[in-house]
């Protein structure tokens, strides 16, 4: 069952309120997405923890109803450069 990009974005920002979310539909089939998520809450977290935070926001849909989500996470650039 495909998911709408807007629904993915809604779930992520519900759990990570300051997240800037950019979603691309890779195949145009509503089933293969790439998401870039930037949040201050990621500062100081390992990549694994950042991705886990997004997976948790999506509440078990990744790997199930949301088959393919290519994920890129980061803290805002100003945080990275300090």
């Amino acid at each position: 069952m495909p998911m709408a990009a807007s629904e993915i974005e809604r779930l992520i920002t519900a759990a990570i309120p300051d997240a800037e979310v950019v979603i691309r539909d890779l195949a145009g089939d509503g089933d293969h997405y790439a998401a870039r998520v930037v949040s201050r809450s990621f500062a100081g977290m390992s990549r694994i923890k950042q991705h886990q935070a997004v997976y948790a926001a999506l509440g078990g849909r990744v790997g199930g109803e949301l088959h393919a989500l290519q994920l890129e996470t980061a803290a805002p650039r100003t945080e990275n450069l300090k």
Partner: protein
Amino acid sequence: MSDANARISEIVKGNDIVLFMKGTALFPQCGFSSRAIAILDRLGAKYETIDVLQDAEIRQGIKEYSDWPTVPQLYVKGEFVGGSDIMMEMFESGELQQLLGAEA
């Protein structure tokens, strides 16, 4: 369940570089697994692969082992490194080369 955990733990600790994937290195069954293999091959890494499609217990268990919902998953020296997106980021930044090179 703890049985799967024990099996996975044994695999992860018994192989310096191991990729849990869908399919085999020669015939990956998923784009993400294929990408992970391409990265490892590009770096000339010597690695083991585990085809989760051949083993339902491991396919489910690996998601719980590292609290990570998807396959592929890369482990180096017993440590979970990440999925194919993290592998790609680390490849592009040179970190993965460093990590794998240090193990070779």
